[in-house]
């Protein structure tokens, strides 16, 4: 009856805590909550795509079995979440009895650091007064944006960016499930572009696999409009070596032939700087310059000209002798 799930981030979203990749200490403590059927209010903090919402959904599913949907209220960033929503929708839900044979319902507030401080205050007593029937799970990027009284009411868990190994593990799981051929180079490329964000990694893989079942490095970079890190590095090395013309040719290749956006090239340059053999101070000076060019792009300047100017600055550096 259920429609086949076509979006991989959903299709491969872990259904049980034990399926979550990485975040081991957190997962094992959450598992203790589930086995004991005891749940405090929870605050999950950490960067995007590191498993916060997944962990929350796993908890609900494991605690409530089939009854999980009726006992969960999910409020996403897209919903209106000012003080009125907290005072009406959230409070009304919190005060009703749980359905079926479960001890309490769960309210999941995604991106709760986007709640205004007034809305957060409106949540405090609700968390206490209806704790016998409702538990809260709050997701956020920075816990420091959550007011102290709410932190006081929660057990806090900090999620970390996923390591290369962990991302690789997940990619292989999907490749197996989808019968893909995934070359080691492709895995490396996905790790590079995803930057510890599992959601991004999976999306990149699905995009590349949409064209062909065999996914290699080239398809990753092509489909995602990203330059190979070597190409970017090569371009920078040419510039540093004083070969401005060659460096500029490389740039045009990226911008015009490959059709990459100036912003994206800049972002990649930004990352590559730290891998160049340059004095540490120089790297920072370059980052500062880059930021300047990036700002000009934001303001609507011509990306080709700005990036060429950036390359000229690389030519001023004396390579480490």
């Amino acid at each position, binding site marked *: 009856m259920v429609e086949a799930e076509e979006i991989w981030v959903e299709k491969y979203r872990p259904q049980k805590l034990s399926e979550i990749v990485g975040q081991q*200490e957190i997962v094992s*403590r959450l598992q*203790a*909550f589930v*086995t*004991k*059927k*005891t*749940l*405090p209010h929870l605050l999950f*903090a950490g960067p995007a795509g590191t498993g916060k919402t997944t962990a929350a959904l796993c908890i609900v599913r494991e605690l409530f079995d089939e009854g999980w949907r009726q006992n969960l209220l999910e409020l996403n960033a897209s919903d209106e979440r000012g*003080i*009125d929503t907290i*005072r009406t929708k959230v*409070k009304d839900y919190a005060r009703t009895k749980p359905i079926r044979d479960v*001890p*309490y319902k769960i309210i999941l507030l995604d991106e709760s650091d986007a709640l205004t*401080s*007034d809305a957060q*205050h*409106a*949540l*405090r*007593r*609700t968390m206490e*007064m209806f*704790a*016998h029937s409702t538990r809260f799970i709050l997701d956020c990027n*920075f*816990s*420091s*944006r959550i007011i*102290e*009284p709410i*932190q*006081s*009411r*929660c*057990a*806090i*868990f*900090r999620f*970390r*960016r996923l390591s290369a190994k962990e991302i690789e593990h997940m990619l292989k799981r999907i490749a197996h499930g989808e019968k893909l051929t995934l070359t080691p180079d492709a895995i490396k490329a996905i790790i590079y572009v995803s930057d510890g964000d599992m959601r991004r990694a999976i999306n990149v893989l699905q995009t590349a696999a949409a064209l062909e079942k065999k996914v290699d490095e080239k398809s990753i970079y092509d489909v995602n409009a990203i330059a190979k890190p070597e190409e970017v590095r090569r371009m920078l090395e040419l510039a540093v070596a004083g070969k401005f013309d060659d460096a500029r040719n490389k740039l045009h290749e990226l911008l015009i032939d490959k059709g990459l956006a100036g*912003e994206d090239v800049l*972002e990649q340059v*930004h990352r590559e700087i*730290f*891998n160049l053999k340059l004095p*540490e*101070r120089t*790297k*920072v000076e370059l*980052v*500062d310059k880059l*930021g300047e060019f*990036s*700002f000009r792009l*934001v*303001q609507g300047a011509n990306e080709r000209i700005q990036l060429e100017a950036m390359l000229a600055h690389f030519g001023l550096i004396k390579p480490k002798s």
Partner: protein
Amino acid sequence: MSELWVEKYQPRKLREIVGQSKAIQDITSWAEGWKKGKPTKPAILLYGAAGTGKSVAAAALAHEFGWDLIEMNASDKRTLSEIKRVAGAAASAGTLFAGAGGRRLIVLDEADTIHGTADRGGYRALKELLEETRNPLVLIANDQYAIPWDLRMVCVLVNFRRLTVDIAIKELQRICRAEGITAEPLALKVIAETAKGDLRSAINDLQTFTLGKKRLTVKDLVLYRRDREVNVFDFLKQLLSVSSAKDARTLLWALDLPPNDALAWIDENIPRMVTDPTDLANVYDAISRADIFLGRARRGQAYGLWGYASDLMSAGVATSRGEHLKWSKFRPPSHIRRFARTRANRAVRDAVARKVAKRCHTSARVARKDILPCLGVVFKHDKKTAAAITSQLEFTDAESSFLKAMG
């Protein structure tokens, strides 16, 4: 088994509330006063940090004096009409159940967050309520100065302090005994210290860390410090020792602070420890460039620029701070400390300015800038005129000493 310990071990009586003896004493004598009729200060304001016993004290008070409790908090709409509707009737009538002699306790929790637009008129309603009331009223707040001064003036002010580590440990021990848990003393100390005087979070942490166990050891808590703390101190320490730009920038990634807060911490602490003037200038270049990018990001909603700001404040500072460091203690950004310290003073100043403004038919801002300095001189040198003005404008003691100190 699904019960939260903060509820299970919640004090039901005033004397069960730990570490707040002065506060409890003040609350009790104020409440005793109500037995004899309406006191000059019909309301009491309980203020202090989260998890120190304020809400619990209000509930225990009602229970002990046999008063019905009516609570309004930030989850309720608190407009003028709403407050009057809920508390208004209660404020003047006796209770149905306790007979004519009985009273109702009206508790306005989270009184410092009465919302500007959604709760329009909330504070005005409260003031009127205080004048009319025949029932005791409790206001609760984290920040006493967020409550309008004229409302605060008619309240007995009671401070709930952050609990000391020793008291928190005792309370944790009590719970451990009741739950049959053996805990290493050091483990309880770690939890108590991390809570920073917030007993609720200490109890919550104790419960989550002992879940399914009968023993708690320090080992169970290895990741905890890192988990709970923002650990900005560790970050700063490492920023003063890393040498590669790449390492410095990854340090910042692990820190759970938005970039503008991180910059404030860096700005407060790192320059103090740099001795060489050239290094110092370079460090400040990095900080100031970071600041510029943050400003641009904010103004243009271009959060892609955050990355550059982050690198400059981390890698930029690390690569320019030099090797000649003079170590001293890390501390929170001074504008935060100062703000807290001068807050009381500013509240008094604003109260004075408002009274003067009303009298002189001008705005509080003009009163503050143009009239207060003049009054300051008068209060310092001319006692007689000062006394006359004081009685005319009904300055409190705090207010007239503020003026005197100003001159």
